[in-house]
């Protein structure tokens, strides 16, 4: 029989994280710092709103773009929280931010187009680019400058084929953010080369110290930015799968067609729950978001301090819920470190290389886990290091 697999699919590399997942899965007592989602469960009133929608029989499709009321509230949310101005007609509710990423790339990628991606970053951008016959171009970011993209780095990566730049700040896995000033510096390069920015801002609510600034809020940038966000991280709603995307009209039109044919609409129940999350957020100034944020912030300080005091140089993450320390001082690379740590002390962290070559000597440790577990994990990592040093 002939192979039915497309070349595109065949060439796709299996996720590096998946391999690690299988090993961790066998260790029943492992403490996992490998998670990429909140440890909080969705606030009960949001869950209840989802349940009520089902009880009321709201189980049909919604319009392709998503519930009008939800889009109105998203529009308001973006205005209130991030000073962005998108009418509800320019918002598509997607099946998580993941669909939005895929949708955007499907709408814009032409064969051999180059898409610039910061390295390290979330695992799905490059494969989604490749699936659309375009070429992912990594820009190596380093902890010295906080894992951001500088104008020089961007300029160096641009060729006549470059079409777009993916910005993913606050960043998974590094926790790096880009400040307004840092974003302003790359804008001229973006404009000069007439690039599109795909800005994945799923961690926008989780910044520590400075408020998140969306690149789309800078002068002139809204018309060349596709803004992606969602409910997963801010409202602890990962399993509901609701995200949204806002784009310039031409791109929005293209994405809308693909979304219509490929997805129809995001799950109705989840949309009702998400709508409630925003409505109640407007009423109490997003108290549950703040509660989770403050809790993460304490854990973040604890983790940064723990790694630094163990001599694993840890850049201070200003966003998301990850720390990304370098393990180079141990003589191991991130993968060897993670494998050893899991084997000897049963703590799971993710090798940085899963997020790109630039993460080779790093590990990603998520602090979306209770303080109690973090405490234990830190003790075990300490023991692991002592053993490594032959003590």
């Amino acid at each position: 029989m002939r192979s039915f697999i497309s070349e595109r699919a065949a060439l796709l590399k299996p996720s590096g994280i998946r391999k690690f997942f299988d090993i961790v899965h066998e260790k029943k007592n492992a403490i996992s710092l490998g998670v990429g989602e909140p440890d909080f469960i969705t606030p009960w009133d949001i869950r209840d709103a989802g349940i009520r929608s089902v009880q009321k029989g709201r189980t049909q499709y919604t319009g392709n773009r998503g519930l009008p009321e939800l889009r109105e509230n998203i529009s308001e949310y973006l205005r209130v929280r991030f000073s962005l101005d998108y009418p509800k007609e320019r918002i598509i509710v997607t099946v998580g931010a993941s669909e939005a990423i895929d949708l955007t790339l499907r709408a814009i990628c032409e064969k051999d187009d180059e898409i610039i991606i910061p390295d390290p970053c979330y695992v799905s951008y490059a494969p989604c680019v490749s699936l659309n016959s375009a070429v992912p171009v990594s820009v190596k970011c380093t902890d010295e400058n906080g894992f951001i993209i500088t104008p020089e780095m961007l300029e160096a990566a641009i060729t006549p084929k470059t079409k777009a730049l993916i910005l993913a700040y606050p960043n998974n896995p590094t926790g790096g953010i880009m400040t307004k000033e840092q974003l302003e510096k790359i804008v001229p390069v973006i404009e000069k080369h007439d690039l599109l920015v795909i800005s994945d801002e799923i961690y926008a609510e989780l910044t520590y110290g400075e408020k998140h600034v969306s690149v789309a809020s800078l002068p002139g940038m809204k018309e060349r930015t596709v803004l992606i966000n969602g409910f997963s991280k801010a409202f602890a709603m990962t399993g509901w799968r609701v995200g949204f995307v806002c784009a310039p009209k031409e791109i929005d039109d293209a994405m809308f067609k693909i979304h219509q044919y490929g997805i129809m609409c995001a799950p109705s129940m989840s949309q009702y729950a998400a709508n409630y999350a925003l409505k109640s957020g407007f009423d109490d100034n997003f108290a549950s978001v703040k509660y989770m944020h403050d809790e993460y912030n304490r854990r973040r300080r604890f983790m940064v301090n723990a790694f630094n005091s163990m001599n694993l140089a840890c850049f201070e993450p200003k966003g998301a819920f990850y720390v990304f320390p370098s393990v180079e001082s141990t003589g191991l690379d991130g993968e060897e470190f993670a494998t050893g740590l899991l084997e000897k002390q049963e703590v799971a962290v993710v090798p940085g290389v899963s997020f790109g070559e630039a993460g080779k000597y790093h590990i990603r440790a998520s602090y979306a886990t209770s303080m109690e577990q973090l405490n234990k994990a830190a003790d075990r990592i300490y023991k692991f290091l002592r053993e490594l040093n032959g003590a």
Partner: protein
Amino acid sequence: MDRLEKEILDVLRDDCRYSAAKIAVMLGESEEKVVAKINELEESGIIVKYAAITNSELIDEEVVEALIEVKVTPQKGRGFDGLAESVSLCPEVKGVYLMSGTYDLAVFVEGKSLRNISRFVAEKISTFDCVISTATHFILKKYKIEGNITQKQDSMRLSVQP
């Protein structure tokens, strides 16, 4: 109460075993400052005690707990305080609260047996002149204790995710 005091309480309410040094790291403050604040919180009585929260149902020892609703005629000049203070002195009483609604004092008691508690109600609480009536409710099962759900909940979270 200032922001730092609130944050310290947040941390200690969740787990009172954290050292001042660790709390200082978590809150991004100096250790001296945190120690001073904790001392103040202790001295002012805001922090009552550091104790383990236990689930008596799992302890292999007969313990009976009850909530006694007490209706009271307020005493001249003292209102409910006189009775409440006297009742508070009994060692089997774990909590005394003045309530709004259909009764006045809620008294939580702990005893070795039902009889034990019945006797406490009959021989101690009911004998106060100002007590009009009592209603005793025994606690049958604890679902949530001090904000903690007693039934271990399985986490379905995948252990490694992108």
